[in-house]
C-alpha cells in the first residue's frame, strides 16, 4: 500500500507540503483500501486524533506482529487468512432502506428470540430516525454513573478524557506481544469500551453497550479495558443474542480486566455472530484474547459466556490470581452446530496465597460441529493453599459431531487441591420421548433438556441475559434432532 519513494517525492514536490504522517492516502477519506502496513496503523491513529504515546504503542505492537506467525496448535480447521486482503478502516455500509428489505429469515429469528418489535428495524441496520427514546435514556444512565464517579465510555473517548488511566492500565494484562491476534488488535484496534469504578463504589446497574443496537454494531478489532478500584463492584454485559453479520470475517478483540484489592468484576458475554451457512461457508472467526488480573488481595473476577455463533470460536477468558485470597471463575456454554468449530476454555493462574478458581464448562455439539474445551490450571510455587474445581461436560446430539477435552493441570506447590470432573453424554431418545409423551414437541423437549444441561452456567448470567440466552440455545439447535 505504501507508494514507492520516488512517487512520494513527486507528490510532495507538487503539493509543496510535507505529509504530516508520511503516507499518501488522503486522511480525509473514510476508508482505507485493503492492506496492512505501518501506514495503516498511522492512518487509524491519526483518524482518531490519538496522542503520540498511543501511536507508538500501536506501532510497537505492529512490529511484534510482523515477527509472529499465526498459531497452529488449536484443534481447528482454519482456512488461511490473507491479512493484506482486508481493509482495516472502513465506513459503515448502507443498510436496508426499510424493514421490508430485510431478510425474512432474520426477522423470524428476532421473533423467536423474543426481541421487541420496536428494536427489530434498527437491529437489522435500517436507518431509523428515532427508534425509541434512546437519547434521553442514555443521558439518564450516564448522569447516574457520573454522580458516583463511574467512568463508562468508548475507548476512544477514554483516551481523550482520561489518558492517564488508559495509559496506566492498557496492555498491563495483555501485553502487545502476548499472541498473534492480540498483537494485531493492539496495532489496529478500532474502538471498544472503557470503564473505571472508583474505590468503594458498587456500580448500581449492569454496564453494557447499553442497547442491543449498539452491541450489534461491534467492530472488528474491539479493545475493552475495565478497572475496578479498591472495593469496587461492576457487572458488565457484552454482546447480544441477535445474530449479526459482518463484511469482515475476522474478529479479534482484546478485553483486559483489572480488579484491585477487595474489588469484583463480573463479565458476561452472549455471542451469536453469523456462523456460516448450513454448508459451512462464510461465517465469522471469533479469535479473542480476554484476561483478568486479580491484582489486589481478595479481588474476584468472574467470566460467564454463552457462545452460540461464529464459524470458529477461539478464546480463553482467563484469570491471573495475583493477590492473596483471590477468586477466579469461568462459566461457559459453547454450542457448535452444522459446521461450526470451537476451541475454548480458560486459564486460571494461581500466584497468590489461598487463591481459588472454579471452572464450569458446558459444550454442546450437534450437526457436524467440533467442540473442544481447552483449559489450564496452573499453580505457581509460591501459591500456597490453591484450590481449583473444574467440571467440563459435553453433550453430543446426533452421531456426526465431536466433543474434545484438553485439560492441562500444572501444579508446582504441594499444598494445592485441584479437582477435575468430566462427563460426556448424548441426548437420550428416552429423555426426548418422556418429554414428548407429556405433550411437549420435539423442539421444546430439546430446548428443555439442553437448558437443563446448561443450568449451572445460565444461572450466573444477569437476569435479562439469562432469559434471552435460553431462547438462543433453542434457536441455535434448531434442526439438530429429527
Amino acid at each position, binding site marked *: 500500500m505504501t507508494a514507492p519513494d520516488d512517487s512520494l517525492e513527486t507528490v510532495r514536490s507538487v503539493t509543496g507540503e510535507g505529509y504530516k504522517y508520511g503516507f499518501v492516502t488522503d486522511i480525509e477519506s473514510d476508508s482505507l483500501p485493503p492492506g496492512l502496513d505501518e501506514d495503516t496503523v498511522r492512518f487509524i491513529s491519526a483518524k482518531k486524533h490519538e496522542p503520540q504515546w498511543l501511536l507508538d504503542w500501536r506501532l510497537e505492537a505492529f512490529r511484534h506482529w510482523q515477527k509472529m506467525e499465526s498459531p497452529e496448535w488449536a484443534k481447528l480447521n482454519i482456512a488461511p487468512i490473507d491479512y493484506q486482503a482486508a481493509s482495516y478502516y472502513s465506513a459503515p455500509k448502507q443498510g436496508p432502506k426499510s424493514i421490508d428489505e430485510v431478510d425474512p429469515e432474520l426477522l423470524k429469528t428476532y421473533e423467536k428470540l423474543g426481541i421487541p418489535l420496536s428494536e427489530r428495524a434498527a437491529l437489522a441496520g435500517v436507518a431509523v430516525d428515532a427508534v425509541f427514546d434512546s437519547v434521553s435514556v442514555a443521558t439518564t444512565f450516564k448522569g447516574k454513573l457520573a454522580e458516583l464517579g463511574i467512568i463508562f465510555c468508548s475507548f476512544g473517548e477514554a483516551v481523550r478524557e482520561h489518558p492517564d488511566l488508559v495509559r496506566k492500565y492498557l496492555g498491563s494484562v495483555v501485553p502487545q506481544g502476548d499472541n498473534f491476534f492480540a498483537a494485531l488488535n493492539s496495532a489496529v484496534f478500532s474502538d471498544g469500551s472503557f470503564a473505571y469504578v472508583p474505590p468503594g463504589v458498587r456500580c448500581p446497574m449492569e454496564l453494557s453497550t447499553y442497547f442491543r443496537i449498539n452491541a450489534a454494531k461491534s467492530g472488528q478489532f474491539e479493545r475493552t479495558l475495565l478497572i475496578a478500584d479498591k472495593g469496587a463492584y461492576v457487572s458488565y454485559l457484552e454482546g447480544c443474542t441477535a445474530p449479526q453479520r459482518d463484511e469482515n470475517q475476522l474478529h479479534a478483540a482484546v478485553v483486559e480486566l483489572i480488579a484491585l484489592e477487595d474489588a469484583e468484576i463480573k463479565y458476561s458475554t452472549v455471542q451469536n455472530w453469523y456462523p456460516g451457512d448450513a454448508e459451512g461457508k462464510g461465517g465469522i472467526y471469533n479469535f479473542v484474547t480476554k484476561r483478568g488480573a486479580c491484582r489486589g488481595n481478595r479481588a474476584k473476577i468472574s467470566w460467564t459466556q454463552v457462545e452460540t455463533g461464529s464459524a470458529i470460536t477461539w478464546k480463553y477468558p482467563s484469570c491471573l490470581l495475583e493477590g492473596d485470597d483471590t477468586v477466579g471463575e469461568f462459566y461457559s456454554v459453547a454450542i457448535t452446530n452444522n459446521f461450526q468449530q470451537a476451541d475454548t476454555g480458560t486459564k486460571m493462574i494461581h500466584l497468590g496465597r489461598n487463591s481459588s478458581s472454579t471452572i464450569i464448562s458446558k459444550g454442546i455439539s450437534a450437526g457436524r460441529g467440533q467442540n473442544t474445551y481447552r483449559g489450564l490450571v496452573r499453580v505457581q510455587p509460591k501459591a500456597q493453599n490453591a484450590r481449583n474445581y473444574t467440571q467440563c461436560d459435553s453433550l453430543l446430539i446426533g452421531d456426526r459431531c465431536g466433543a474434545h477435552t484438553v485439560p492441562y493441570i500444572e501444579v508446582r506447590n504441594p499444598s494445592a487441591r485441584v479437582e477435575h470432573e468430566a462427563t460426556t453424554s448424548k441426548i437420550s431418545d428416552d429423555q426426548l*420421548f418422556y418429554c414428548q409423551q*407429556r*405433550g*411437549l414437541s420435539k423442539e*421444546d423437549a430439546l430446548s*428443555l433438556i439442553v437448558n437443563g*444441561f446448561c*443450568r449451572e452456567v445460565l444461572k450466573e448470567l444477569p437476569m435479562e441475559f439469562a432469559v434471552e440466552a435460553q431462547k438462543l440455545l433453542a434457536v441455535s439447535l434448531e434442526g439438530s434432532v429429527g
Partner: protein
Amino acid sequence: MLEIKNLHAKLSEGREILKGIDLSVKAGEVHAIMGPNGSGKSTLASVLSGKPGYEVTEGRVSYQGKDLLALSADERAREGIFLAFQYPVEIPGVNNMYFLRAALNAGRRHRGEAELDAGQFLKAVRAKLKELEIGEDLLQRAVNVGFSGGEKKRNEIFQMAMLEPKLALLDETDSGLDIDALRLVSKGVNAQRAPDRAIVMITHYQRLLDYIEPDHVHVLSGGKIVRSGDKSLATELEKHGYAMFGDAAA
C-alpha cells in the same frame, strides 16, 4: 374411546411382537392387561403411546374417532393419552415443577384453554401432592433425579393427576413397590376414575387388582389377547398361572 383392531407390530430392527390384538376400551372403564414376560404387554403400551423403535405392520387403532397411529407421540399426549412409564427416565437440570407446568400448558394450549400461571399451578400442585402424600421438597428436584423407585412411580401418578388425561396407560406401575407405596399409588389412581376417563393397567401380578378393581381383565400371551373376562379371571390366573393358556410366549 379406544378401538384396537388386528394390531400387528414389530421392533423396527427385529421380530414381530404383537400378532393381532383386538381390544375395545370405553370411557369410564378400567381394564387390566396381564400376561407372562415377553408376551407383548409393554410393547402394546409403547406402540399406543408412539414410542420410536416400533413398526406397525397391520391393523388400526382408533382413539376418540381419530386414527391414533397417524399422530406423533406428542400429538397423542396432547389429545389426552398418558403413559405411566415402567422405568421413568431422569432428566438432570430440569426442575419437576417447571417440566410439569410446561407439559400442562402445552395440553391446555392445544385444547384452546387458558394457560395456568405459576400461582394457579402451585395451588393445584399442592392439593394433589397432599392426596398422594408426596413432600413438596420432591418438586424442587430435577425430574426423577435421585428419586427412589417408589418415588418415581408416585411421581408418574402425580403427573397423571395434574395432566388429567382421557386415556391413561399404566405400564407395570406396581413393579418395585412396597405395600405402602402400592397403597398410595392405587389411591391416586382410584381418585382419577371418572366417567370420561379410561384406564388401562398393565401388570404381572393380581395384587394390584386388589387395590384398583378392574371392570375387564385380559390375558396377553404370545402377542395376542387369549382370554378376556372380569376381575375373577385375575383370581383364576393367580391360582393356575399362565400355563393354563397353553402358551406361546414368543
